[in-house]
């Protein structure tokens, strides 16, 4: 292990804002995109089902 403590890990040698700003936004974008894809699918399935029932 290269870190002595957690606070040293979060500080990133003074570059904490830049490093975690990069990692955090990347993770947030990927999480948001995945959530949005799931939402789009479930909304479409609900819509298709409603149309199906309308046709019966």
């Amino acid at each position, binding site marked *: *292990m*290269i*870190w002595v403590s957690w606070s040293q*890990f979060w500080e*990133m*040698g*003074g*570059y904490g*804002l*830049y*490093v975690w*700003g*990069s*990692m955090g*936004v*990347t993770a947030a*974008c*990927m999480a948001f*995109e*995945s959530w949005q*894809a*799931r939402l*789009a*699918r479930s909304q*479409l*399935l609900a819509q*298709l*089902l409603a*149309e*199906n029932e309308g046709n019966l």
Partner: protein
Amino acid sequence: MNILRANFLFHYAGPQAFYGLAGRLWPWCAALAAVFGLWGLWLGFMVAPADAQQGEGYRIIFVHVPASWMSMVIYMAMAFWSVLGLTFNTRLSGMMTRALAPTGAMFAFLSLWTGALWGKPMWGAWWVWDARLTSELILFFLYLGYIALTSAIDDQRRGDRAGALIAIVGAINVPIIYFSVKWWNTLHQGASVSLTKSPSMAQVMLWGMLLMALCFWLYTIALVLYRVRTTILHRESHTAWVRAIAQEAA
């Protein structure tokens, strides 16, 4: 043999067959993306030492380079599907191109974002109008243009064809981005990894970065397959098999 192989490919170019194939593939890609991502982050943050010149600040590389690679790879994939779509008039091609675009735009944005956060401490500027940065910004705008154009055209197949043209014409920008650090004098450093010479990075840093790149590849494949399934259901919603799926899901 060739005829057999071609038949196999055309079989999966049909939306219904591809829907099933994509459904079987995406969970594996997502799981592998998670494994490679955790492994890459472990190497990048827990094993790799600080850089001699940039201290701990260089660790931005573990997302910056993979995100930038994916922004270019995804655009080339869109151009590839567009050529197929215009040549064979396959329905799947337009759907694949559309499914790729949002993820490509996201990676282009992340490339610019992480680049700004890296530029500020190392160069003293969030942004410079340098060839590498400017051509990546153009790539981001090409993605946005593709998305805006295709969603503005109501006729889906016409939208697919118009989008295919942007994807193919815009692809000329990708080699410009890649070679910009060679062709022009730029502030941006040259390639850390290339096919022609051995990498200018320490082994463990390189492995961390390559694992993150693999993670982003698999994430992209998983997400695009997932998204194209939704598009297929939407476009084929008049068919019996899609109605059956909607009924099953309820």
